[in-house]
């Protein structure tokens, strides 16, 4: 009984529960025949939201007002430039990855420069930055679709032991993030800054350094997601990131990370990402129109937060 209570006090349980219910409702339509296909598809596509969500979570953990709206533009720029750079050659895969990461680093530096040097609130700073990055993406390849190297295309679209490779990548990144947040000094620092920046400063935490690294990390993860997404969908498109603006925020908050900062939650991102994909699949499967589908999505999000909300942040 007590264990059950403890379980339900976990912030991530609600997103997992919601994802499971919807998964079940969807496979029931075909009497279970679609179980494997749906699960694989959900894992594959959730992987992208997970990767960008992780980065966004680090930023949101930094406290109220911290958010990165440049995620979609970064994905686009990294995807387009990396694919152009690799030019369909398998030998260029790693240099291409390095280029994507470098783009992430550059965007992260730009973001934090605006926030710190010009004192622009993060929400506006990253929005402005995203316009510039988007322009850079347009300028570099003008929307041409270049195919990914064949090895990468195969890797991103296939599975290992039935688990999509992308989900494995997301899992590795999640474990890394979890380790960083829970076990490292840096993780403590982020959480402290998120609870109170003045207190963190007075406790001797290098606040600017930590925030800077966090914004860079978020941009790098976005760039990585862009790189993978471009390879997965057979080429980069100028609008390929747009979906991930609201998505990256939604999966973080539905996953149980405190919007007020200081408290992050890695497992919740998985639940929320699967949930966001499955909701659309379910409503498509039931043949509901776009209007109804949107309304249901919204109501489900609100119900999840209503069920999970009102909880006191757990002692740690």
């Amino acid at each position: 009984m007590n264990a059950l209570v403890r379980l339900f006090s976990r912030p991530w349980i609600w997103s997992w529960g919601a994802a499971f219910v919807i998964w079940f409702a969807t496979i029931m339509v075909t009497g279970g025949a679609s179980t494997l296909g749906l699960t694989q598809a959900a894992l594959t596509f959730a992987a992208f939201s997970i990767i960008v969500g992780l980065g966004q979570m680090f930023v949101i953990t930094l406290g109220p007002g911290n958010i990165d709206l440049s995620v979609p533009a970064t994905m686009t720029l990294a995807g387009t430039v990396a694919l152009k750079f690799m030019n369909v050659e398998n030998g260029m895969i790693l240099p291409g990855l390095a280029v994507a990461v470098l783009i992430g680093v550059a965007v992260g530096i730009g973001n934090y420069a605006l926030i710190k040097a010009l004192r622009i609130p993060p929400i506006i700073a990253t929005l402005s930055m995203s316009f510039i990055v988007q322009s850079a993406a347009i300028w570099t390849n003008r929307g041409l679709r270049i195919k990914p190297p064949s090895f990468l295309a195969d890797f991103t679209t296939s599975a290992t032991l039935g688990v999509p490779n992308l989900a494995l990548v997301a899992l590795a990144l999640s474990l890394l993030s979890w380790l960083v947040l829970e076990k490292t000094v840096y993780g403590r620092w982020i959480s402290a800054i998120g609870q109170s920046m003045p207190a963190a400063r007075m406790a001797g935490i290098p606040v600017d350094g930590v925030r800077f690294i966090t914004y860079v990390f978020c941009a790098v993860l976005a760039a990585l997601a862009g790189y993978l997404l471009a390879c997965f969908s057979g080429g980069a498109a100028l609008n390929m990131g747009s979906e991930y603006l609201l998505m990256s925020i939604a999966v973080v908050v539905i996953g149980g990370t405190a919007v007020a900062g200081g408290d992050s939650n890695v497992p919740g991102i998985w639940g929320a990402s699967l949930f966001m994909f499955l909701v659309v699949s379910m409503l498509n499967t039931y043949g509901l129109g776009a209007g109804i589908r949107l309304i249901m999505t919204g109501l489900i999000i609100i119900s999840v937060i209503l069920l999970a909300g009102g909880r006191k942040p757990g002692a740690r």
Partner: protein
Amino acid sequence: AAMPVSALADTSGKKIALSNNYAGNSWRQAMLESWEKVTGEAVKAGVVAAADAFTTAENQATEQAAQIQNMILQGYDAIVINAASPTALNGAIKEACDAGITVVSFDGIATEPCAWRIAVDFKEMGRSQIEFLSGKLADGGNLLEIRGLAGVFVDDEISGGIHAGVEQFPQFKVAGSVHGDWAQDVAQKAVAGILPSLPEIVGVVTQGGDGYGAAQAIAAVGRPMPVIVMGNREDELKWWKEQKDANGYETMSVSIAPGVSTLAFWVAQQILDGKDVKKDLVVPFLRIDQDNLEANLETTPAGGVANVEYSQDDALQVIEAAN
């Protein structure tokens, strides 16, 4: 020193602007490039004084309306518009007309009566897909429909045409419908999500730009490949070609050529020139079939879209045809 290209009034002092609401995909980029190429030559030749292209930061009717109002202030003689909404720009377009400016809309057309429209028959674009499928698959069967962006005019029109087609050929049934937002990756994701719960699909009807994504999603789960109606992106055509070479895969491609912006340019120039032009013009959509696939693929730039650019003569023909 310019050649006399027109027998009527001179437009060499006129300025034309392109109002564009979105630049985020290869179709729009091709559209802008065609515009730049064709109008650049026209300006050099002294046909018009200027032909500037403007794109809004975000794909929103409100921003485009502001952009049009700015163009009025900038003193353009004609504005060529690819409209974000057929009706939401009417206020701004009316202001332009009142200021004596010629307004020509294309692709995304505007319903304001004072503007000219170069329309594609989107309904027919949808219907013809089913007609084509009925020729290929006499027994009919289940179809998957990939729609565009919800709430947008073009999406509604093409989808209406598709459903009209299904009524006409009742052996077909739309078993599932998803919104792919005219984007490869979104379509891929949506299809992958609904596919596991669908019965066998014999055909996929699309709105262009999303065929390759659908093919990828279907290939990923190892289902038999249905007939996917393609758009005009190079990757779609290339995939089709590969399949054709490998197993004789047959399909078709319908789309609207991004170069239609140049047609709109010439039409605007003709109107400024004093030519009497009907308010509603129609351009045929671009259709690629099994036999002219290779030819089209050859002229399509790598990573770009199949395109047709128009000349002044083409414009004159279209204008004549309407009269």
